[in-house]
Every structure is written in C-alpha cells, then in structure tokens.
C-alpha cells in the first residue's frame, strides 16, 4: 500500500530565511506520526506545505496520492486540519460551528455524534469565546474530523492546556486513531510524542535529524539505564565495573551512579546483595525521548521551557515509558526493558548532571520497571 503522505526533499525559504532545508518522510496508513522539533525548526512550515497552504520552493509532496497545491479542492475534502492559531468567531456556538463545517464536506460526520464523542454535547449552545482553552481545543479537533477525513494534521495540539486537559486530549487522539484516521501530530512536547506517536521525525534546522519509534530514538542515545544509589557501606568500584552489564561508574559524594545495559539493575542489585551492601535510595533512570531530543538537536534551546517540564512531568505523569501499548499498531515499538540491547551510542556521556526530574522506579523484588496501572 502506498504511503498516505510522501514528502521528498522539501525545501522552503522565506526570502533569505530558510525555514525548511531538506525534509523527507513518509507516513503510513493508520499510524500516528509525530513531527517533533524545537521552535523554529520548520515543523509548521512543513505541515503547511503538506496541507497545501504554502507552496514549496523545491521537493515533492503527495498526500493520498494528491498534489496539495494543484489538487487542493479534492485534498481539502479528505484531509482534516487543526491549526496552531486558527480561531472561530467569538459568538459562534459549538453546534453552529460543527453544522457549518459539516456543510462544507461531501460526506460529513454527524455533527451531533461527533460532539458526543468529543464530550461537547453539553456545550452545543455555548459561544466559542465562552469555552475554556481545553474545550476550544476539543472543538478544533472536532472540526478537523467533521469532514470524515482519512488523514488529520494536528498542530501543537495541547499547547496551553493544563496537564489534565492534555491527558484527556491524548486519549481522544488514540480514539481517533482507532477509527482508522491517519494522524500527523506536530509538537514540541516530548511526553506527547512519547505517549502517542508510533513513529517520530525529529526536525532541527529545517532537516530531519532522526526518524524512528520513540523508544528506538531513546535507546539510540544511551544504551541502557543509569542506576543510582547510596551504598550502606563503602565498596570498591571494581566490584561493579567488572560486571559485563556495567559500562561505567561515577561517584558524587557518597552517591554512586552506575551506567549500563538494560540488565544493569538486576546485575548490580544481585552483586550488592551478595556482599551484604544495602543500596539505599535506589533509583533507576532510563533514557527517554527527551534525552534523545536533546542529544539530536544539540540542546533544549527554546523548545523546552520550564513550564513544559512542569506540565508534562509532574504528578501521575510519572510512569515508566509505555512499552507495547494496548492500541492497534503500537506493538512494533521495542520494549525498553530487558531484552536485546543496542550498542552504546558513540561517545555519549551519561547524562548524570542534567538538572531535571527523572523517571525513577523504586526497588521492587523483581527489577522489572512495571508500568503502573492506568492512572485515570
């Protein structure tokens, strides 16, 4: 089956300012495809070319086999779009907006059923301006879907939403995918890409710097995990560095950080137990998409504001990275837990000094990072 979206060597400049240098990727039917990158990386320009809102300077784009510029009329019937900054008239009600947009399409969805599915049926008479940010976003998603599109492009879906609204929106997107809609998700939130996307294209400086599953991207950065603890009694480095699973050991005061492969935790705890050493405050850190992103794009720059981190990494957001999820089409992402381990990235430093909240798993009888049960 041909790809739903095919982008080849896209180049777009505004005067001397090159927004997109050379971007190529393809999106398969039914997947959630993430376009991830720092602000100004060229994400929005790329998807605007896909939507036919902008004309590329060079390169080729096919969406559902159509040329987004020359076959625009047909494309708009089959491609749903949620814009980063598209608003509605203040006094337009939810119901009016849905019925209005439904009238634009050949085979629209039932506006009332859609409102119901998106939890908007109680607000059909509410004017747009009176909706909360989360509700406006919901309506925006509903309008992107009201034409029964085969593909939906969602740009900065959860920007400005509080954590709960963000999580609700994520659930919603999974439901949309379950209906068979192919989704392109533009975002600069790591957690969002990590949770939702089957595959992610990381764009930086107008180029695709990586394209893979979120889990594979994370593993590419750092071969495995970092085990941190405070030993109850001193021990020699060689006790652990001799283990095949361990690649490095650093000390900071009386804290020890051991880096190693996916099996490092089991090996380290076993050895410590044999020598009667209690590992106090044991924590396990695993590389995640954010680490990959930072490594790939050369730093957080403007992409990660403190607010982003708070929004996506607090409270119940702390669960270990989901392995093969329950949804369809997600089984392909490799489980970050024990298993075949790729070689450590060349010359990557263990990110021991990064000042951020890290994922942690408390020592459990079995050192498997078990995902906590669904938190909602």
């Amino acid at each position: 089956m041909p790809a739903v979206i095919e982008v080849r060597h896209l180049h777009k400049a505004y005067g001397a300012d090159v927004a997109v240098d050379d971007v190529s990727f393809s999106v398969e039917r039914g997947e959630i495809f993430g376009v991830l990158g720092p602000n100004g990386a060229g994400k929005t320009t790329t998807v605007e070319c896909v939507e036919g809102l902008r004309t590329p300077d060079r390169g080729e784009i096919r969406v559902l086999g159509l040329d987004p510029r020359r076959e625009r009329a047909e494309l708009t019937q089959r491609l749903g779009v949620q814009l980063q900054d598209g608003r509605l008239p203040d006094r337009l009600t939810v119901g009016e907006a849905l019925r209005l947009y439904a009238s634009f399409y050949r085979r629209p969805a039932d506006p009332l059923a859609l409102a119901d599915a998106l939890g908007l049926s109680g607000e059909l008479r509410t004017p747009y301006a009176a909706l909360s940010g989360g509700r406006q976003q919901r309506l925006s998603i509903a309008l992107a879907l009201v034409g029964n599109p085969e593909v939906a492009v969602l740009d900065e879906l959860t920007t400005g939403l509080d954590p709960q609204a963000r999580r609700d929106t994520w659930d919603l997107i999974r439901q949309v995918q379950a209906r068979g809609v192919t989704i392109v998700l533009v975002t600069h939130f790591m957690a969002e890409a990590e949770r939702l996307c089957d595959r992610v294209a990381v764009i930086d400086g107008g180029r695709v710097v990586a394209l893979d599953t979120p889990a594979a991207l994370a593993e590419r950065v750092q071969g495995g995990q970092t085990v941190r603890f405070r030993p109850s009694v001193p021990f020699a480095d060689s006790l652990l560095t001799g283990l095949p699973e361990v690649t490095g050991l650093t000390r900071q005061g009386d804290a020890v950080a051991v880096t190693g492969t996916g099996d490092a935790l089991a090996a380290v705890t076993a050895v410590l137990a044999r020598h009667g050493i209690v590992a106090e405050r044991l924590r396990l850190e695993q590389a995640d998409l954010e680490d990959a992103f930072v490594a790939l794009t050369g730093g957080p720059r403007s992409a990660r504001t403190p607010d982003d981190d708070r929004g996506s990494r607090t409270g119940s957001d702390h669960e270990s990275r989901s392995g093969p999820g329950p949804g369809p089409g997600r089984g392909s992402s490799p489980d970050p837990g024990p298993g075949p381990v790729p070689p450590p990235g060349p010359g990557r430093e263990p990110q021991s000094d990064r000042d951020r909240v890290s994922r942690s798993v408390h020592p459990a009888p079995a050192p498997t990072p078990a995902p906590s049960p669904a938190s909602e």
Partner: protein
Amino acid sequence: MSATSAFPRRGSALGRLTRTELRLFVREKAGPAFAIGLPLALLTVFGTIPYYRRHEVGGTPLLDLYVPILCAFVLATLAFNWLPAVLAGYREKGVLRRLRTTPVGPARVLAAQLLVALATAAVAVTALLLVARLAFGVPLPRQPYGYAAALVLAALALMAIGLFVAAAAPHGRAANAVGATLFYVMMFFAGLFLPIAAMPPLLRHISRAAPLGAAAQALTDAAGGRWPHPLQLITLAGYAVAFCAGAIRLFRWE
C-alpha cells in the same frame, strides 16, 4: 463512535455560511443598530422638524430628498463600516485561515458576507420607505423599478469598495480607519450634510461621479418618477466591477 457513518448533508455550504453569518451579525447587535436603527432614527429626527417638511429644494420637500440619502447611508454604513471590519477581523483572528483548510473557497466566504449585507440593506431600505410613507407622508418611489435597479447597483458598487478596503488594508485597525474616512467623504458627496441639488455646480459634478453621489442621484431621480440617468447606473456598475476584481485579486486569507 458511530460518527464515521455518512451524514446526510442539509443545505449548501453557501446557504449554511450565509445563515450562520447572518446570525452572528444579528447577535453582534452593533451592525443592525447602525445599519437599520440609525437611519430610521435620523429619518424620525428629520421628519419631526417642521423645517424639513416645509422647506423645498427645486419643488421637492427637503425630507423627501433625504429619504434616498438615508438609503445611501444604509448601504454606506454596511459597505464601509461593517464589511471591512468583519473581514479584517476574521483575517486577524485566524477565522479565514481556518476556513482556508476546508473545501469552502474565498468566493463563497465573500459571497456570504455580501448576501448578509444585501439582506440587511433590503430590510433597512424597506423600513425606511415604509416609515417615511406612513409616518411622514413621503410618497413611495414613483419609479419603483428604477429605484430597485439603482439600489442594487449602488449596493454592489459600495460593497465592492468595502471588500476592496478589507482586502487591501494591512490589518483590522487600518480597515476600520479607511472605512470610516470613506464613509464620511462618501456621505458628504451623497448630500447627507447638503443635498446634491443645493450644492454649487462643481461639487455637484464631483458628487455625480462619486459612487455614493451617483447612487443618491439615481435614487432621487427614481423617487421623483424618472428612470435614473444611464450615466449614473453605468458609473455604479463600473465601480462594482473594478473594485470587485481588485478585491478578489488582493484577497488574502491571512
């Protein structure tokens, strides 16, 4: 989730868009107040001042001369004060940008606004003529077909200029400022402050070439029972075509 099943579509996109815009226009309240309420209020003020009913210019009571001018006022306020503000506001807020990603094209977006303006104008003009006739004894237009033709052409000409302002203005504030300025200049040449018949010859000539002046003159002629002078109708049609073409050429979604 049963929303994926095809849903029978009711009404065309243009019909739905026009009805929706009409509702928003009514909900906004300022639009109907200025386009329908204000001309009626002015008519009532003029009508209750005895001077306007007794004083005659060229054998016609002053009040009778003012009715066509108030009709021109309706068209002008819709075309210059309302239309550019709505479209420029939509562009600034991203409403047009959002519409652009749908199968609805610019022609239908503009047409819906035009239809709302025309419908409002029809209501306002009908109300003006009826109130003038019933409350103040101003005779209905003696050449109704000529009056209607002049009204439609004038509406198209002014709306085209309004659309052009909306399309050409860099942002909403500029559109409002240009629209308001045009409104007063146009209303002057339409004879709001001084009826055309009472103007000195040079001003009268300029008035007849200005869109709203031509409109007021054509309406006045038809009210008096004469077919409007073809030159005025051609002038109006010329404005309509030229500015409509310019507006479509300059139209920007964002």
